[in-house]
């Protein structure tokens, strides 16, 4: 049974691991969005600080590395980027709530390195749980 889609008006957040963001050089890697079944979270359901708390509890425990930030993007803009990419892709963001994260959603389609890099350039980055970049 297909999962309901997240509205294009909503903004979503992607947790960024230290393995994919070299904070010292401020360089990001395509793994932030490359691959299939990418997990994101809906800012319409939980706030930025609530989501960071969840990210830290689930993903950020020694020696597993650290969540150094998160990238935010509008769902409609994300879909537009994928449609206009060299290899067009009809991206869907599907609601997939979890017990530990009621805002959880997934992007089931396979995102390439090139498309991931294009998406990353459009992200609004949040460092830690406080200020945005």
């Amino acid at each position: 049974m297909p999962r309901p889609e997240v509205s294009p008006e909503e903004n979503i957040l992607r947790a960024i691991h230290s393995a994919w963001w070299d904070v010292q050089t401020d360089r990001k890697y395509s793994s932030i969005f490359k691959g299939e079944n990418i997990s994101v979270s809906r800012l319409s359901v939980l706030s930025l600080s609530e989501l960071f708390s969840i990210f830290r509890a689930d993903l950020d425990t020694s020696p597993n590395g650290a969540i150094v930030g998160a990238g935010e993007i509008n769902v409609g803009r994300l879909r537009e980027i994928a449609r206009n990419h060299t290899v067009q892709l009809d991206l869907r963001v599907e609601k997939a709530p979890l017990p530990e994260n009621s805002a959880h959603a997934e992007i089931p389609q396979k995102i390439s390195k090139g498309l991931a890099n294009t998406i990353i350039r459009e992200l609004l980055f949040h460092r830690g749980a406080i200020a945005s970049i």
Partner: protein
Amino acid sequence: MNLQTTFQQGLHIPLIRIKYEDCFPRMRYRQTPIPTQQPVELIPQIDELRSKENFVLSREAILMLGENGKNRFDEFKRYPKGWFGGKGREISKYSVAVFERFIKKIPELKLFSPSLFLTLEGNIALGLDDKNKQNIEIEFHPDKVEYYVESLDEEASIGLADIFELAGKIRKLLQ
């Protein structure tokens, strides 16, 4: 050696009896696990990285990555299986071997201060900007190299036998 001499009566010809295994000692093989897709030429480097104690970057790699990159590598080595919510794999020693082989062919990468990354598959990767500040990514799999060049809008993977060719392509973008 176990010798037994036999004198044939009347002929005084000593016959030396030699055991088969003295001539053909049992061969001993190192129990070295080798992935089936790995080219033979990389095996010496892989053997060097096989033991945890030898899992260190070469001097050339450290010079290229700098202190920050080396620190990131040391951190990646500590990630257990299942990092990032169960999805991440441990760093691949074979990926590191391929990385080491590649950077030896293009030492000028050092001038562009590449950053080191780790993928969920356990592969290490480099990210850098070319001379026009456009993105280049190179991911080192155990059996191939995957790359993305923003200026060419090109994304592809090549076999390990073509690493030299990829190094040449990247070199042109950096000059």
